[in-house]
C-alpha cells in the first residue's frame, strides 16, 4: 500500500493548479485572469459543498453564507481596522468556521429536506441581519478605500496577488477533499451519507462528524470570500448572500459528479465557461437561466452521478487516477 500522498492524484492537482495560476500571468491577459478567477472561486465553493453533499449526503442550500460572511469579516478588518488582507482573510475563515461549528451542532440535528430548508433559513436570516447591521454598512455594504491596496503594491499588483491566492485556495480545496476522503474521518462521512443510522450503530460519532464537516466546508469558502470581495473592492448583502449562486454551486457539483474529488471542480469550471459563453452570445443572453435549468434537469433525470460518474462507468480504469 503506497502512502496516500504518493498516489498520482495530488500531484496531478498540484501540476494543474500551477498551470492554472501561471497561464494568465505569463500571458499577461487581464480578461482571461478575471474569467479564471471567477471559475476558481466557483471551484472552491463547489468542492467544499461537495464535502457536505457528496460525502455526508446533506444538502446545504445556504453554503454561500460562509462566502459572504468571510467576505464581510475580511473587508471590515481591512477597511476599518487596517489589517493586512491575508491575515484578515484567514481570521475571517477561522471565525466563520467557528460560527459554522456552533450552527452545525444545532441544525444538523435535522435530516434530509428539513436540513436543506434550515440552511435556506440561515442564509436569509443572516442576510437580513447584515442588511440591518450598521458597522458593516447596512444595505449599502462596505466600499474598500483605495489605500487598502497600497501594502500589496497598488491595485494592479494586488489583483494579481488576489488571483494567485484564490487559485491556491482552489488547490487547497481539492487537496483537502482528497485528504478527507482518504482518512478515517472521510470513511465515517461516507458511511453517514449512505445510511446514517447504520453508521451510528457501527460506532461513527455522527453528530460530531457532521458538525466537523459542516465547519470544515465553511473554512476555505470564507477565506476565498475575503479574497474575492477584497479584489472586487465592494461587498453588499444581496451579492454576498445570493441564494442563486448558492444553488448554482449545487448544479456545478451535480454536473461534475458529486462524491468525487475533481468532479465538482470540473463542473464548476465547465459551468462558468458555459455561462460566460451564453452571456456573451446574443441569442442566449436572455435565456441563460433557462438553459442552466434545463441542463440541471437533464443531469438529474438521466446522469445523476454527473460527468465524472459517467466517465468512471464508461472507462472503469480511470477510477484509479481520476478521483
Amino acid at each position, binding site marked *: 500500500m503506497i502512502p496516500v500522498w504518493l498516489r498520482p492524484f495530488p500531484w496531478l492537482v498540484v501540476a494543474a493548479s500551477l498551470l492554472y495560476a501561471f497561464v494568465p500571468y505569463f500571458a499577461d491577459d487581464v480578461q482571461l485572469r478575471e474569467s479564471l478567477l471567477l471559475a476558481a472561486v466557483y471551484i472552491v465553493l463547489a468542492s467544499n459543498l461537495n464535502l457536505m453533499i457528496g460525502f455526508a449526503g446533506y444538502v446545504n442550500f445556504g453554503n454561500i453564507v460562509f462566502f459572504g460572511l468571510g467576505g464581510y469579516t475580511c473587508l471590515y478588518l481591512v477597511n476599518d481596522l487596517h489589517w493586512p488582507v491575508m491575515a484578515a482573510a484567514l481570521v475571517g475563515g477561522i471565525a466563520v468556521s467557528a460560527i459554522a461549528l456552533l450552527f452545525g451542532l444545532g441544525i444538523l440535528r435535522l435530516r434530509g429536506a428539513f436540513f436543506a*430548508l*434550515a440552511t435556506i*433559513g440561515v442564509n436569509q436570516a443572516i442576510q437580513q441581519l447584515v442588511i440591518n447591521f450598521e458597522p458593516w454598512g447596512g444595505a449599502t455594504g462596505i466600499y474598500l478605500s483605495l489605500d487598502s491596496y497600497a501594502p500589496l503594491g497598488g491595485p494592479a499588483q494586488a489583483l494579481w496577488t488576489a488571483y494567485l491566492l484564490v487559485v491556491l485556495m482552489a488547490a487547497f480545496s481539492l487537496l483537502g477533499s482528497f485528504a478527507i476522503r482518504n482518512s478515517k474521518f472521510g470513511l465515517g462521512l461516507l458511511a453517514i451519507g449512505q445510511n446514517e443510522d447504520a453508521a451510528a450503530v457501527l460506532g461513527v460519532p455522527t453528530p460530531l462528524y457532521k458538525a466537523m464537516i459542516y465547519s470544515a466546508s465553511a473554512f476555505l469558502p470564507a477565506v476565498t470570500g475575503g479574497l474575492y470581495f477584497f479584489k472586487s473592492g465592494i461587498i453588499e448583502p444581496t451579492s454576498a448572500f445570493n441564494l442563486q449562486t448558492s*444553488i448554482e454551486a449545487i448544479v456545478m457539483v451535480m454536473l461534475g459528479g458529486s462524491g468525487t474529488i475533481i468532479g465538482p471542480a470540473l463542473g464548476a469550471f465547465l459551468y462558468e465557461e458555459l455561462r460566460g459563453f451564453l452571456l456573451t452570445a446574443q441569442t442566449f443572453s*436572455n435565456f441563460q*437561466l433557462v438553459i442552466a*435549468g*434545463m441542463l440541471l434537469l437533464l443531469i438529474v*433525470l438521466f446522469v445523476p452521478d454527473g460527468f465524472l460518474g459517467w466517465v468512471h462507468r464508461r472507462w472503469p480504469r480511470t477510477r484509479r487516477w481520476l478521483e
Partner: protein
Amino acid sequence: MIGIFASVIDGILIGSVYGLAAMGLTLIWGVMKVINLAHGAIVVLGMFLLYIASLMIGLPAYATIPVTIVFGFVFGVMLYWIAVHRMIGRAELMSLLATFSINMVLIGLGTAWWTTSPYNVLVAMPGVTWQGYTFTGTHIMAAVLAMVIAGLLYLLLYRTRQGKAIRAVANNREAAELSGIPTTQVLSFAFGLGVALACVSGTLIATLFPFTVLSGEAYQLKSFVVTVLGGLGNPAGALMGGIALGLIEGLATPFMPVSWIPIVEFGLFVFCLIAFPRGIFAFSKA
C-alpha cells in the same frame, strides 16, 4: 389600542393568503415527500395569469380564479410527469434539484418575457371603514376567497373518493397500491392540486400588492416559514401557520423597523425547525 387591533385584523387577512400558498407546498410534501422548489415560480405564474387575464383579455379580476385553478392543475400534472415522477422514492437531493431546475426555467422564461420590472393590477373593491380605520376591500375579498378555497380542499380531501385515495397514498403508498389504488395517478393528481393552490394564491396576492417576476422567492420563503410553523405535510396546519405569520407581521410592524421583520421570520423559522420539526400545530394531523 384600536390601531393594534386593526393591524391584527389585517395580519389575519393577509395571513390566510399566505396559508393558502403554503397549503400547496405542504400537500405535495405530505403526499410524496417532495419539497417543491418551483413553488415560488408557480406563485409568480399565478400573478401573471391575473395580469394577462385582466389587463390583456379584460376578464374581471375575480373571474380569473377558476381559470387559474384549472390552468395550475393541468400545468402541475404536466410538471409531475416531466420532472417529479422519476424522483419519487429517490434521495431528497434529486427531487429538490429537479423542482429547482423547473424554477430556474420558469423564472428565466418570465424574465425574458416580462423583464424584472414591477407590474400592478388595480382591483376596485370598496373597503370597510370602522372607527376611523379602513380595511381594504381587496384584502377582505382575498381572505374570504382563500378560506373558501381551503374549505373546498378540505371537502375534496375528506369527502370524496379521490381525496380518500390521496390520504391513503400519503399514509402508506405501498399499502395503497396493494388495495388497488392507482398510486401514480393519485400522485400526479396531488401534485397538480398543490400547484393549482400555489397558482391561485399567486393570483390572490397579485390583487393586493404589485409584483415582479422575482417576487416568487419572497413568497416561497414565507411558505416555508408557514409550513414549518404548521408542520410539514399538514394542510390544516398550513392555514393556521399562515395566519400566525400574518399576525406576527401585523403585530411586529408598529414596534420595529420594517427591515427587521424578515429577521424575526427567519429566526423563528430556523428555531421552529429545530425545536418543533413537526410544527407547533401538530395536534391536528391531517
